[in-house]
């Protein structure tokens, strides 16, 4: 038993190490191919990334990334590919901004209200895909990606003067939230940390707890591993699909909140887009594990932060995008390779131990 545990640990460490080494090698080759010095690039990145203002920036950036990864991971654990997190968080943030901008309540009411609206809108948007899948058999990949476009169109329609938006220079945005809706910050030097970090941490713990420790989570994972076994085991697969899409959408609803409640205080044409897709990469990177995804989100923030600095040092600006892609590929491949190796190892071990047991009983029979 102990032996297997030790192998498990070694394999657990082997996968990320293998991925990092492979990613570094490949990126180095690519940088070399552009005629630049890879080692210098890494030095620049580490130096710049470890500055305290960079650290704050990275953490604040990682918060929505992490939430997005969680939303995607809920689907992944269920074997559902929710590509629509992007549309879900945008439409959620938009309507949350509209509601928040229209009301002036005390903060302890207004902030939860805005967040709840966002989560509800997010789940409704994701739920459409869930219901279409269970009633009509339409793949969630298709519906969620189309719902992204529809979400963009709906926002585009309402985000005009005279509808739900006000004009501000060249930009349109929803009316500003009252000061009572500003989320708290954690005072750090030189810039404050976004208080939503706490919410992200709570969401991560909740994700871990619900999936790993509750009956519901077990059912969800069962469906993800084998729909037929889940059905035979008494899980209503259809209901589970809808429920997990609703949950995924609710988590997606949180993604826009750090920006809305902490930075922009409105939803405008310049509201960040694409975080939903980043979330897919980070969920893959973090293997759907709450801590893995946190590391992934921070790594992503680090690469984005230090990438800008690489440009000043005369590296191609696309190099960061290349690195991100290479890392995700390396991680996915490395984990799969290690997983297969581990499984073979385990099968052999089971065989060996059984053979050893058998030899022992044979001897006992002989001596008896």
């Amino acid at each position, binding site marked *: *038993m102990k032996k*297997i*545990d030790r192998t*498990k640990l070694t394999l657990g460490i082997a996968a990320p190490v293998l991925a990092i080494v492979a990613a570094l090698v490949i990126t180095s080759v690519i940088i070399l191919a552009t005629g630049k010095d890879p080692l210098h690039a890494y030095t620049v990145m580490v130096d710049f990334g470890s500055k305290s203002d960079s650290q704050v920036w990275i953490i604040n950036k990682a918060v929505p990334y992490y939430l997005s990864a969680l939303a995607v991971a809920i689907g992944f654990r269920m074997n559902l590919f929710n590509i629509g997190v992007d549309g879900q968080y945008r439409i959620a943030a938009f309507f949350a901004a509209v509601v928040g901008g229209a009301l002036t309540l005390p903060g302890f009411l207004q902030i939860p209200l805005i967040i709840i609206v966002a989560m509800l809108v997010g789940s409704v948007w994701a739920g459409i895909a869930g219901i279409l899948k269970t009633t009509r058999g339409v793949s969630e990949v298709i519906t969620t990606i189309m719902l992204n476009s529809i979400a963009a169109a709906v926002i585009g329609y309402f985000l005009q003067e005279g509808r739900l938006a006000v004009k501000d220079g060249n930009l349109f945005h929803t009316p500003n939230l009252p000061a009572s809706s500003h989320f708290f910050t954690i005072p750090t030097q030189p810039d404050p940390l976004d208080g939503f970090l706490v919410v992200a941490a709570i969401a991560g713990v909740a994700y871990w707890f619900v999936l*790993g*420790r*509750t*009956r*519901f*989570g*077990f*059912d969800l994972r*069962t469906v993800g*591993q*084998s729909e*037929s*076994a889940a*059905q*035979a*085991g*008494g*899980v*209503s697969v259809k209901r589970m699909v809808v429920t997990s899409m609703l949950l995924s959408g609710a988590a997606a609803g949180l993604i826009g909140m750090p920006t809305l409640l902490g930075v922009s205080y409105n939803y405008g044409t310049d509201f960040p887009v694409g975080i939903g897709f980043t979330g897919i990469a980070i969920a893959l990177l973090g293997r759907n594990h709450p801590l893995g995804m946190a590391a992934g989100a921070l790594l992503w923030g680090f690469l984005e932060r230090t990438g800008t600095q690489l440009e000043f040092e005369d590296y191609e600006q696309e190099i960061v995008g290349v690195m991100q892609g290479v890392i995700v590929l390396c991680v996915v491949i490395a984990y799969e390779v290690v997983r297969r190796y581990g*499984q073979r190892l*385990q*099968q052999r*071990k*089971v*065989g060996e*131990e*059984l*053979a050893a*047991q*058998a*030899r022992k009983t*044979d001897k006992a029979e002989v001596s008896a």
Partner: protein
Amino acid sequence: MHALVGENGAGKSTLMKILYGMQKPDEGTITIDGEQVSFASPADAIARGIGMVHQHFMLADNLTVLENIVLGAEKLHGIGAAARAAVVEVSDRYGLNVRPDVLVEDLGVADRQRVEILKVLYRGARTLILDEPTAVLVPQEVDALFDNLRELKAEGLTVLFISHKLGEVLSVADDITVIRRGTTVASVAPGETTPKQLAELMVGSELPSPETRESTVTDTPMLTVDALHLSATDPDGVVRAVLDGIGFTIHKGEVLGIAGVEGNGQAELVEAIMGMRDPDGGTITLDGADISHAPTRKRREDGIGYVPEDRHRHGLLLQAPLWENRILGHVTEKPNSRGRLLDLKAARTDTERIVAEYDVRTPGIEVTAASLSGGNQQKLIVGREMSHHPKLLIAAHPTRGVDVGAQAQIWDQIREARREGLAVLLISADLDELIGLSDTLRVMYRGRLVADADPATVTPEELGSAMTGAASGHLEHVEDGTETGGGAAE
């Protein structure tokens, strides 16, 4: 023709994988035609003239027979007229009677198997490996298969086949190798041994038998199925009845066996009773409560245990550790959960208990279900289902692909529980098992229960003819060996 027999987990499958290049040996050599070879992949093995017919057919249902055969071997004769001519030629040479233009989905099990055999012959195989080829066939089909194999032998081919059915092995093989726990324990000639001796070599101990001695049937009905009707849409969009007018009662302490060629509605019947399919007519009553449309989880909580036909699809999470598999299907019950929360500690402890009590051979409960052998996986499933003290056990092919040792244990457990008042619905392709374990026998054909028989007197051959629709009504055993339908024989 060489037969390989041995318990599950004895290493037969591993040996086959090595011979077919799917796995590499640590040491030792393989010699073909006096030449030492080593295979890196199945392609190497095929190039050396080795062909494998898997237990689970590897055919694409929506392609024709010809397309299936040519698929992956397009380089040999292309995909056009030349390929067709070659297929027909091979089929005729070995008397396989394969029709090249039929869709595979329209073929029965025996025909599919012939397609598989033709597929490897088409690729130039001189050595055929068949993995439990008779497991899915009725006796008449087995005879036909053996005729085909003899034909192959006469043409100078080598056939290596794995089987659990020792009677068959003795009747058809020229040489028999018995392996146990990864090593050869005996090489025997069929003339010099009996099924009993062979089985004892396999297990290394006494031969188990499925026979049930005293009757424990009571008058209390446990499961009553009445006029059950289920329609399904087949791939062509035609709605047809897969279950029609099914009615039977299983009492406490009774084992009801259902015989039938696979695909005649047995799987659908099980799924209707389990709540995985919603019947469109009729009622299912469990212990006095109508459960015709109750959800699966409710039925499980109410005391239905389920040993599924396809354990990989319906009974296990292969990539999950054993203790998670112990929770599967019983997540709402103790000791797996308390309220809405899982009780991981209790579940782990109970898994240890099952592993010990049901003799699941594993180094621990953290290994994945996939790393256990088939027999041990099945023991885990039986242990799990029995641990919740079911009122009704649905056992679909409970000992399929399970070694003789585990088979005996599973039979014992069913008998044991039956003594304590368990009602069992037994579905099996192994007619000896059905006859040996059941108190009552019914035969299913095309979605209907067409015949019944007394397990004390009926023979496998008699059951076999009812399974193919040749006889119906009450099967009376006649001493001269021919059977008659008590009702209307066709």
